């Protein structure tokens, strides 16, 4: 291992620790939604390692549970966006012609849009008007799923461009021409022969995208359009902290630090992967 791999290792170690901490959240510490109005803004103690918030809830436990939500949303979104982008990029690159130019115009169009305002519009849609029932609407799974879908809907463009460019260069290789000559169907060629060759840059791009997705998700939750209280998320914990900024200014520290460290860890790990897979850099 070389010295320049150190930051990437640091990122990877941080990610493992984060995953372990958030996955074990249900067995550690207090109920994140249990209020105790007799002990609001309590100082750190053995029972509450990071103190309590404006409703007397345990901050450490809310951080861990919020982290579960943020990480789950981010990983699922990165996966869905990569899936969408890869499909579009593969088809555009392999088919070429009008299919390619239509799909790429679409990609350019989505890329040209102001993303945050668009996400706010998507997040503010009324699920009732989309025909989703009351029961489903109030479930936590729906809340999380909705974030995943809307962020993936605007986040697939980078992957599509990357995969298309790779596909264009791979499809002229001899083994692809051999497969065509042997009568393989386009679907089989795309999945068995081209996809494995575009996979590694895709993994890098997906890893690097997770950090950004966490930033977007926490921003939406911060604005009140993402994960709704009482369910904890790093973004909505900061909304709470902002409301009490004059009486309890330290409340804003931990959730933001958690976001920062997580995003940094994903960026460092992604960058390290990129160096590994692309020796020219």
């Amino acid at each position, binding site marked *: 291992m070389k010295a*320049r791999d150190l*930051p990437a290792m640091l990122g990877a170690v941080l990610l493992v620790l984060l995953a372990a901490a958030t996955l074990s959240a249900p067995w550690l510490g207090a109920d994140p939604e249990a209020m105790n109005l007799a002990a609001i803004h309590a100082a750190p103690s053995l029972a509450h390692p990071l103190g309590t918030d404006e409703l007397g809830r345990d901050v450490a436990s809310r951080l861990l549970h919020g982290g579960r939500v943020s990480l789950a949303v981010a990983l699922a979104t990165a996966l869905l966006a990569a899936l969408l982008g890869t499909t579009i990029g593969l088809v555009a690159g392999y088919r070429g012609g009008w299919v390619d130019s239509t799909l790429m*115009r679409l990609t*350019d*169009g989505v890329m*040209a*849009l*102001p993303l*945050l*305002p*668009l996400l*706010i*519009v*998507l997040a*503010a*849609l*009324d699920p*009732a*008007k*989309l025909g989703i029932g009351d029961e489903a609407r109030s479930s936590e799974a729906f809340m999380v799923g909705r974030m995943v879908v809307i962020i993936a809907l605007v986040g697939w463009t980078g992957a599509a461009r990357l995969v298309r460019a790779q596909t264009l260069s791979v499809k002229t290789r001899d083994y692809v021409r051999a497969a065509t000559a042997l009568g393989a169907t386009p679907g089989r060629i795309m999945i068995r022969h081209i996809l494995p060759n575009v996979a590694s840059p895709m993994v890098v791009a997906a890893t690097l995208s997770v*950090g950004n997705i966490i*930033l977007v998700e*926490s*921003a939406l939750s*911060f*604005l*009140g*359009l993402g994960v709704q209280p009482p369910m904890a998320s790093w973004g909505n914990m*900061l909304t709470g*902290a*902002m409301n009490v*900024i*004059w009486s309890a*200014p*330290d409340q*804003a*520290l931990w*959730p*933001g*630090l958690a*976001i*920062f460290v997580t*995003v*940094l860890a994903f*960026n*460092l790990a992604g*960058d390290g992967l990129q160096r590994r897979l692309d020796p020219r850099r």
Partner: protein
Amino acid sequence: MTAWLTSRLLQSLAVLVVMSLVVHGLMALMPGDPIDLMIASDPHLTAADAIRLKALYGLDRPWGERYLAWAGQVLRGELGYSRLFAKPVLDIMAPAIVNSLTLMGSALALSLLVAVPLGVFASRRPGGWADHLVNTVSFASVSLPTFWLGLMLMVLFAVKLGWLPAGGMQSLTGDSGGIVDSLRHMALPVATLAIAGIGQYARHTRAAMLNEAAQDYIRTAKAKGCGPRRLVWRHQFRNALLPLVTLLGLEFGNLFSGALITETVFGWPGMGKLIADSVMGNDFNLALTALMLATAMTLLGSVLADLAMARLDPRIRLR
């Protein structure tokens, strides 16, 4: 060149029309409609009034018809009234645009002023200590959630130290609206946006500088006996600026659409806060117009960046 420009503008127009369809359609899927909200706020309105009002505003007609009616009005320059502010949309948007331009322009200038020298500095010896330092700063900067950065600056400078105001554009009392007062209110939001932008500009500058360092003309200049300072600034740096122009073109749209989150955190009455407030407050005309303007400016920015590139770089021909 003219043909290129025409086709690019037509393409942008097409994206804009598609975007208007999408946004107009999405707005119809927002919770409630204006009349329902009116009824909720006025107990004297009856169901019959509601039906009459819906007919008056055309809300009983199908969506396609409503879109065409709206598009027709916009093309005639009638942007309508803002429900949230009870004023014409243009009267609300004009000051918000000016406020966003002030905020974003200052932040961008400050960001570039720090980031470009940092990037150049880092590129002098790739892998050296300066490079590592700049790289670390860049990583931290792109990983920072802007709203948290804003909150932390607010906690430190407004709550704990009490040096600067926590939000708004001017004080309500005392030296209200004076230059010093305005600058004091700008300090925190501008610092937030500038710090958040430094990372990406420094990284791009460094990458562009290294890319130029490998070119033949650099070797030629060196062989002719060009000194290191002149080599970096007159030869390498001037060419490395070109890719930054593209980046600035992408930033152009943001100058007009503002910084949604930072403006919300600091209560800065710019376009970003306006978009957030109007979307969440169900202000149909205002939200639609603001979103369309933001999109149009983003598209215009990328056309301008291409034009500037062609003008600055003789190797590029626009066709």
